[in-house]
């Protein structure tokens, strides 16, 4: 008999409005233990609002959201006890050292001192900041601050880690460094809820991807299935000075189509950006 896997994160008709603007529109979502779930969409699509509702920072207008089985509105303290949060902006405390930032976090989560001390050292090593443990964080680069935020979010061993645009504004090398950290965290059994508008990030990291646009979830599946549904191959061509794309199930069909054309065209593998374009008619970053 297959064991029943309870979702760690669940939303039911979750809606958030700001006046006449619908930021999150009737969102139904279930994320199970061990997943890296990616929420992909352009800026302003509702990713961060969803993340803020799930981390108890924003109150939903209607619907329900549950984290670890606890309703985030009715039992926020319990819902928060098993989560770690890395917001998209840098919010480590510049007036404290790296060590003190982690110590404050451990104290806020009621960690026992001996365990906390051990975890702080382990996490500083994990994000390669051991040599800067006693430096004030205001002297850190953005990449270092982001790594410290990841260490802080993991210190109390949360069951769910919320990463809101974890690599936005970072250079490619630091971005890959953070991706490596995210994979390792997931391997150590943390479930990850990640929002991003970077296609590559969603493709490389996520087991399942939800595509959100204007607050609505317009697709949800494993990346492979999303690509399959759209077509694994794309033919890109110029039509009246505008780039146009056509999707094909296999390279042979795409090749036959290009051969029938009277102009230049390229064949490439499709990606999640193409899925988004096909669904919305727009690019993720417009």
């Amino acid at each position, binding site marked *: 008999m297959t064991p029943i896997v309870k979702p760690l994160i669940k939303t039911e008709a979750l809606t958030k409005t700001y006046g006449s603007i619908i930021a999150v529109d009737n969102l139904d979502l279930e994320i199970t233990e061990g997943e890296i779930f990616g929420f992909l969409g352009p800026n302003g699509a509702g990713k961060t609002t969803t993340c803020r509702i799930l*981390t*108890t*920072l*924003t*109150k939903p207008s209607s619907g329900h959201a549950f984290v670890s089985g606890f309703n*985030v*509105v009715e039992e*926020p*303290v*319990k819902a*928060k*006890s098993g*989560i770690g*949060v890395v*917001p998209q*902006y*840098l*919010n*480590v*405390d*510049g*007036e*404290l050292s790296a060590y*003190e930032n982690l110590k*404050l*976090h451990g*104290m*806020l*989560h*009621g960690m026992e001192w001996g365990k906390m001390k051990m975890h702080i050292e382990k996490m500083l090593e994990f994000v390669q900041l051991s040599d800067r443990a006693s430096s004030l964080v205001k002297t850190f680069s953005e990449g270092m601050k982001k790594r410290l935020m990841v260490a*802080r979010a993991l210190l109390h061993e949360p069951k769910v880690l919320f990463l809101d645009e974890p690599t936005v504004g970072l250079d490619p090398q630091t971005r890959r460094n953070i991706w490596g950290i995210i994979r390792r965290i997931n391997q150590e059994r943390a479930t990850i809820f990640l929002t991003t508008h970077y296609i590559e990030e969603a493709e490389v990291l996520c087991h399942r991807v939800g595509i959100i646009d204007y607050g609505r979830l317009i697709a949800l599946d494993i990346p492979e299935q999303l690509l399959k549904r759209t077509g694994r191959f794309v033919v890109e061509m110029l039509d009246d000075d505008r780039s146009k794309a056509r999707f094909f199930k296999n390279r042979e069909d795409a090749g036959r189509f290009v051969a029938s054309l009277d102009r230049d065209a390229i064949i490439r593998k499709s990606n999640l950006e193409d899925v988004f374009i096909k669904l919305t008619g727009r690019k993720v970053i417009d």
Partner: protein
Amino acid sequence: MVGTYAIFWREMVILRRRLIRVMASYAISPLLFLIAFGWGMGRSLQVEGMDYLTFMIPGLIALSSMSQTFSIAMDINISRFYWMTFEEFQTAPISSSSIVLGEVLSGMVRGMLASFIIFILAAAFGIRLNVNWALLLSVIFNTFMFASAAVITSMIVKSHADQASFNGFFIVPMSFLCGTFFPLSRFPEWAYLIAQVFPLTHASSCIRAAALGMDIPLISFLVMIIYSILFFLGAITCVKKASL
């Protein structure tokens, strides 16, 4: 209460690091008041049967402890809207009341420190004040009351500019119109009645009475307790509303 201790610990780490600078900044404006009103106006001026400096110093304690305590409002405001570090408290599994208590206690430490500095300055100007339980309790309630009020305003205002406006409209007028620098008996009756609404009026009359070895006015003390409870409960509600 782990959250309270964590928040208080953070504030104390930062305060310890800046202690000399903070103490110097807390001393500057009271020192200027003492020079201007003490030396400038001379000790010959009599107010309510005592020299003006002796009358003014307890008022300065009330004023300085209020303003330094209330300064946490700007810090919380900046941590909410600029550094975003307040979210670290909001996403921790701690109650709103423990966040409020942590912030209030740290505000109270600032106010107590400011009061202590005035004691030293008063001694330097040759004024000896009575140190007693009534004085300590009056300063404790004054700082508790304004630290709670600071948390409320920092949760209500939406920007640093709004916070500065609030200080200009409420804190600055209170500083001068609540019996800190001159006795309220010199006010016309309507102004006297309005002054009774302000919490600092009651704090300054309790602190003055205790510091000068007189019985503290029990009604004023009771008013401070009532304001303390109301502001603290208001602060918890506001922090709850600011998150979930």
